């Protein structure tokens, strides 16, 4: 224990003797002449039977006053203990709330441990210190911003909930850097199990300390679960991976629509996976794979996974164009899709967007555009969505660098194009693939409709001959017809659901995994449901009045190898301005200060109250006597 202001102890040395002197002065008793001390002597003789206590009682006020003085002087000296913690005045706490923090190897979950640690850090914040709490994982939250109100900070920390998401610290660290650069004596505390992605190019202008949580790594997880149509009905494919460092054997239970269907024993070596393929009846809508509970598994959250089937409720797609064999072949391979071909001359479209959610316009732009989402291929003329300015010969393709969902698993580097339409898209569009002379593939949403434009025809490119083509078509259809495509029914927790709906639909209801039914928000032709943080099956139903006209199922799963790898790390590499490349763990140097003057002051206050009571003891006894006397009096 050390003192911040040791000189304050001198005050005790000064005031202490004064109190004692005053007390000695006070001890000079008032003199009073009585007729005879005869009776008093008699009494004192009785009392002196318990003399030691009497002597102490005579001095108890002095002792209490000296105790108060000692406590106050001690408190003024501001004693503190060195603890694991922080020393800065502007503290930024980043709490990882990703799925891996749900591991139960700490006291409670890792998140609980991290919260506790965070509260301990808040408690040792020096006076006048401020703190910001950032919850990283999924969408970043800042529940408390630059606050010096410890209660608010504690509440903010307690309010952080686990998210079924990956842990990307980039956003949080960027914000922390911005906050730290404003104030001197800033310090960033990262509370995580270390299974987090950290941007390499960020340099935090403050000391970053890493407080690791978690101790075990044993974890088995359902790493993949799909349900696909097959000749015999449906095929379920489940994969279980061992992310731990020890071989494990577990039982995998398969539930069909909530009923236990079969169980399989799996023996999996560390780092390996085991898979199971099961034929299930066509009528099954929801499949759940569940690993039986085990003490050896530190992370129970990833032991369950769901897959859903929308068989029998497939989406209809119509193609308007001269006929395109490549396109039709690619579409035919997609599950739950019915394709209708319509001649180029079609001008009126009677079906609603609920009935036909996607129209592919292959080299055609009708005067009256059909309702629903649109996929333009080599549009010959301008529309309300884009302008066509001419033709481009032999454009080179430049796919966007970001990870666009449309380009998942797709490589366009070997694609050659002979002729493409020169496009100028509206502000709604994002360019997915750029090219010389104009964008090659754009996508976006306009007035509630999703629109994708491919600027070149399949006949003017070698794209249809490549592996990328069916994948690209699958991605495009998944984007334009949500709820179709190979894994379209899989969503990540937290990913919002958006369905195109037309005006004839009166209500869109979402049944959540816990059974709760929620009305989705309607906004410019779309029904949006964003509260998908809970993993499990979601059922979206569209109603026209009381009539059910469409039902689509989704399964929210976090199949994330990085989150299921729960082995805690003791070091986290975060570049900092102080030159350290590693965020330190605090075991080596204890810089935190735990001040205890508040407790001392509180105790001093309590002793003060006791002293007052002792001083007034005869008054209290008098009151008590009166009370007793009154109680013993009969009620008149």
């Amino acid at each position, binding site marked *: 224990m050390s003192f911040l202001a040791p000189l304050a102890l001198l005050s005790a040395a000064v005031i202490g003797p004064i109190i004692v002197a005053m007390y000695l002065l*006070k*001890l000079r*008793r*008032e*003199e*009073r*002449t*009585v*007729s*005879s*001390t*005869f*009776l*008093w*002597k*008699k*009494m*004192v003789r*009785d*009392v002196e039977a318990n003399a030691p206590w009497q002597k102490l009682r*005579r001095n108890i006020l002095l002792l209490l006053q000296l105790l108060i003085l000692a406590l106050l002087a001690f408190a003024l000296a501001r004693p503190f203990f060195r603890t694991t913690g922080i020393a800065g005045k502007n503290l930024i706490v980043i709490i990882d709330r990703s799925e891996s923090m749900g591991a139960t190897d700490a006291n409670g979950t890792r998140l609980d441990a991290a919260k506790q640690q965070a509260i301990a850090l808040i408690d040792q914040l020096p006076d006048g210190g401020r703190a910001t709490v950032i919850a990283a994982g999924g969408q970043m939250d800042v529940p408390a911003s630059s606050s010096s109100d410890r209660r608010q900070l504690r509440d903010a920390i307690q309010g952080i909930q686990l998210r079924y998401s990956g842990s990307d610290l980039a956003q949080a660290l960027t914000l922390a850097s911005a906050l730290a650069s404003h104030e001197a004596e800033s310090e960033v505390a990262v509370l995580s199990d270390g299974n987090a992605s950290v941007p390499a190019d960020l340099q935090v202008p403050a000391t970053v300390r890493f407080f690791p949580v978690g101790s075990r790594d044993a974890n088995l997880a359902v790493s993949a679960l799909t349900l696909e149509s097959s000749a015999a009905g449906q095929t379920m494919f489940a994969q279980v991976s061992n992310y731990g460092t020890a071989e494990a054997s577990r039982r995998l239970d398969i539930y069909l629509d909530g009923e236990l269907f079969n169980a399989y024993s799996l023996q999996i070596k560390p780092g390996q996976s085991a898979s199971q393929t099961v034929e299930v009846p066509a009528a099954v809508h929801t499949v759940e794979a569940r690993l039986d509970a085990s003490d050896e598994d530190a992370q129970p959250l990833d032991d369950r996974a769901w897959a859903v089937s929308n068989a029998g409720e497939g989406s209809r797609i119509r193609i308007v164009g001269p006929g395109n064999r490549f396109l039709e072949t690619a579409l035919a391979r997609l599950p739950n899709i019915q394709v209708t071909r319509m001649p180029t001359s079609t001008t009126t479209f009677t079906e609603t967007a609920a009935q036909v959610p996607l129209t592919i316009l292959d080299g055609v732009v009708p005067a009256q555009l059909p309702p629903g989402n649109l996929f333009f291929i080599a549009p010959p003329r301008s529309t309300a969505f884009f302008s066509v300015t001419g033709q481009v010969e032999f454009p080179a393709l430049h796919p966007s660098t970001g990870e666009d969902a449309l380009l998942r698993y797709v490589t366009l580097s070997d694609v050659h194009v002979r002729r493409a339409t020169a496009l100028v898209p509206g502000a709604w569009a994002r360019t997915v693939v750029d090219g010389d002379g104009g964008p090659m593939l754009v996508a976006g949403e306009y007035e509630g409709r999703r629109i994708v434009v491919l600027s070149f025809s399949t006949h003017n490119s070698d794209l249809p001959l490549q592996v990328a083509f069916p994948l690209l078509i699958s991605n495009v259809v998944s984007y334009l017809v949500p709820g179709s495509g190979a894994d379209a029914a899989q969503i990540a927790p937290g990913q919002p659901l958006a369905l195109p709906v037309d005006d004839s639909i009166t209500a869109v209801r979402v049944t959540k995994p816990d059974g709760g039914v929620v009305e989705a928000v309607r906004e410019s032709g779309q029904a949006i449901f964003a509260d998908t943080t809970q993993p499990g099956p979601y059922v979206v139903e569209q109603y026209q009045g009381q009539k059910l006209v469409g039902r689509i199922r989704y399964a929210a799963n976090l199949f994330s190898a990085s989150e299921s790898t729960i082995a805690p790390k003791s070091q986290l590499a975060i570049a900092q301005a102080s030159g350290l490349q590693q965020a330190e763990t605090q075991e080596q140097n204890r810089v935190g200060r735990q001040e205890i003057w508040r407790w001392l002051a509180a105790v001093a206050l309590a002793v003060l109250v006791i002293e007052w009571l002792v001083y007034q*003891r*005869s008054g209290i*006894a*008098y009151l008590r*006597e009166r009370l007793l006397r009154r109680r013993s009096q009969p009620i008149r």
Partner: protein
Amino acid sequence: MTTTTAPPLFDAAFVRKLDRLALLTRHAMLGETQGERRSPRRGSSVEFADFRPYTVGDDIRQIDWNLYARMERFFLKLFVAEEELSIHLLVDNSASMAWGDPDKLHFARQAAGAFGYIALSSLDRVTVTAFANEGGRVLPSVRGKRGAFPLFDFLQKLPVGRGGSFAEACRRYARTARNPGPLLLCSDLMDPQWEEGLRALTTRPFEITVIHTLAPQEIEPTLEGDFRLLDAEGGEPIEITADLETLRRYQEGLRQWRGEIESFCSGRGIAYIFADTAIPIEEFVLTHMRRRGAIR
């Protein structure tokens, strides 16, 4: 040693009330000269008492000639003697008595005065003794209503003495007093040897009445805080911390002490009358003393 110029003991109206009262004695007592009280002796009153045979030397005037006529033997006719009584008033005028509000000594003077006056009005002889050290006074003896003036004067001028041993004073009085008769003792008995004192008085055939005089401040002290209590008679000072608990103990001790005195007295035929000086003397004499059978 101060001579008190105290206020007059009583007003005239009270004295008139005292006239109607008389001392009660539980049995006949010997006196010296003729008075108004029955004496165990035979004397010359009009009340017949007994006969006895004549012996040589007897006064022949007392021979009952009627009886001689009948019996032919000489008998003396004896009458009840009526003699005066000697009333002993013992007033404790030690320093401890000159304390309290109302003053204990003043109260004792008044009580002794009233008692003495009643005795004088029935032609009894009254002796007053104040027995403090350095303040000891004796009013030898007065008789008849004329004696009331010297009695009141003596009591009024009675000075406050110093301390002194109560027991020693009592012992001395018991040794020296003549003609034991009714004895009134006015004291606060604040002496560790009060018991010895009373016992010494009982060795003579006094008919003792103790008026135990205490001031209200002694009965219910109102002290609060730390005090050094000084003894008015120069005893050892004592330090106390007065709180409710201490006062409760004090009163407990007082109650116990009074109980001891009372049972001691009742065991020895002593009339014990407790006197709170807050009670007006008139009420005390007319009500309390009467109720206790000391006067009629």
